[in-house]
């Protein structure tokens, strides 16, 4: 079977700045891939290119063998690519329930199916007690869970998490990791963006390292630590 996702030489420029420079990444089904790199190295931009929030200046994005470079974000969600944004991003004046259900409703035309999907996603992220709360009344961890629930509710094949651990306590981080692991065990593919290697080392099977828009490493986490260029970029950060 072919790869789930292929980024083929994608490039994105902002004026003179090349935020992502001819990056190629292949992701197999069921993988748990880490995407790391220093601040400003282009991780979020790459996520935006995969989720369709930005269009690449050059290169192609293939999903399940299909060229999706020209598709809009919502069309990619329907195909099975979900993402969460860096930071906390929810609809501030909608209760948790609607924050999650609207995505389900736009992917599944059957209202009843959408509702039961929503309940499933809220159960998986342990949010059932908070369905009626507004995001303003939630802890950062719970907000992350809302975002995760929204990403899961559309039946994704690939989930992109942009710095999901930022702002969470170590216990909360391990809770998130546990949920991710469980879903990954059921065959769901993840790309996790992190600034620091530390958290990812133990959970991902492979890391891709970006620096100044270029891919400088692609391989096992243990090798990444020993790689000269990666160490240079991460001097004192690892």
């Amino acid at each position: 079977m072919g790869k789930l996702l292929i980024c083929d030489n994608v490039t994105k420029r902002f004026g003179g700045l090349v935020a992502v420079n001819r990056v190629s990444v292949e992701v197999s089904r069921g993988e748990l891939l880490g995407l790391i790199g220093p601040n400003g190295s282009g991780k979020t931009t790459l996520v935006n290119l995969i989720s369709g929030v930005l269009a690449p200046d050059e290169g192609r994005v293939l999903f399940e063998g299909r060229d999706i470079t020209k598709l809009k974000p919502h069309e990619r969600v329907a195909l099975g690519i979900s993402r969460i944004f860096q930071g906390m991003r929810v609809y501030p004046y909608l209760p948790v329930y609607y924050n999650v259900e609207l995505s389900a409703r736009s992917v599944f035309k059957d209202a009843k199916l959408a509702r039961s999907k929503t309940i499933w996603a809220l159960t998986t992220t342990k949010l059932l007690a908070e369905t009626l709360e507004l995001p303003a009344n939630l802890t950062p961890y719970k907000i992350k869970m809302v975002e995760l629930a929204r990403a899961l509710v559309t039946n994704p094949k690939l989930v992109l998490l942009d710095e999901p651990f930022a702002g969470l306590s170590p216990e909360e981080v391990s809770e998130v990791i546990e949920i991710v692991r469980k879903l990954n065990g059921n065959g769901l593919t993840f790309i996790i963006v992190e600034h620091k290697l530390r958290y990812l080392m133990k959970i991902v099977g492979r890391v891709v390292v970006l620096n100044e828009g270029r891919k400088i490493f692609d391989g096992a986490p243990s090798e990444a630590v020993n790689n000269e260029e990666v160490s240079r970029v991460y001097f004192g950060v690892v």
Partner: protein
Amino acid sequence: MSKLVFAKPSKIKKVRKLLPSLAVVAIYLALPIMGLSGFWIDVLTRVNIFLLITLSLDLYSGTTLYLNLGVPFTVGASAYAIALLNRYLGIPVEYAILPSAAISAVLSFAIFIPSLRVRGAYFSILSLLLPIILAGLVTSQPFSLYLGGEGGISYPPLFFSYARTLPARERLFFLSASYFYISAAVAIVAYVICYKVAYSDFGFMMRSIGQDELLAEASGIDTFRVKLVGFTASSFLSAVAGALYAAMRPPVTADVFIPANTLVPSLTAVILGGMGTVVGPAIANHLTLITYEVLWGVLGRWRIILYMCLLIVLVLLRPQGFVFYLYLRLKRAVSTKISRLFEGA
């Protein structure tokens, strides 16, 4: 999770809750037969028609927060469509109302498509620009020749051919009362539909666009389609308002394009009543417009300045109370939805 939260309100309870509002509506509808003066019946008719504009504004702008300042364009286009269909094709206004509204909605849709595609300020500015340009066009050469210029276009109003057969004494009352009941019926139907739509999943998708459009798009919502459908539906409401008003009150002049006439009262009502809540703006519509009418005698044109100042103050204060109300309403909507789900399971 508590059972209490998910408890479904019983049918009887629901009806009992609605009773006071139904009573108010019944009294309102009885006003003309209880001897309200012709002048005030006409005022209330106007206010009923304005409710359509207010609802239209609330349905789209109140939820997506894309401010549609082009409402006077849509209202004016259907008003002129009524007049032109009558003048050039000889179609009586009775039959021209729906076609005119449709023409105007399609026209608005066509002009606004490009600006719905892009995020940000473009839509509002384009919408502000349209009616003012049209007002200028209508009165300038060569368009004024066909569009009636300053004097506008006149034609026999709604039901006039029938009213003429009545004795002179009854004629005026017949026209006033029939206009009132038609406008009230349309307004009530529009209110119920808007309420349903605004609190449906589609309504919430429009709200999600207002709260974070990029997030909505990236999490699966086809924001362009939602905006397009929402905008067209909302335009149709404004267009019906324009057509009804024109059918009842010839002649049609460029005044319909002036925002102070056709936008400001509704905008004030929407802000005062709480954007996107439907209930609030509908109540505020009647309060602000009746006051607006009363103020005409006291303040004359200064009333516009007064309303503008009020608008600024309201927007800057944005009373939390309304948001809170919306939140309560949402809570109820969610709990019924979930309880229904558990029932089915």
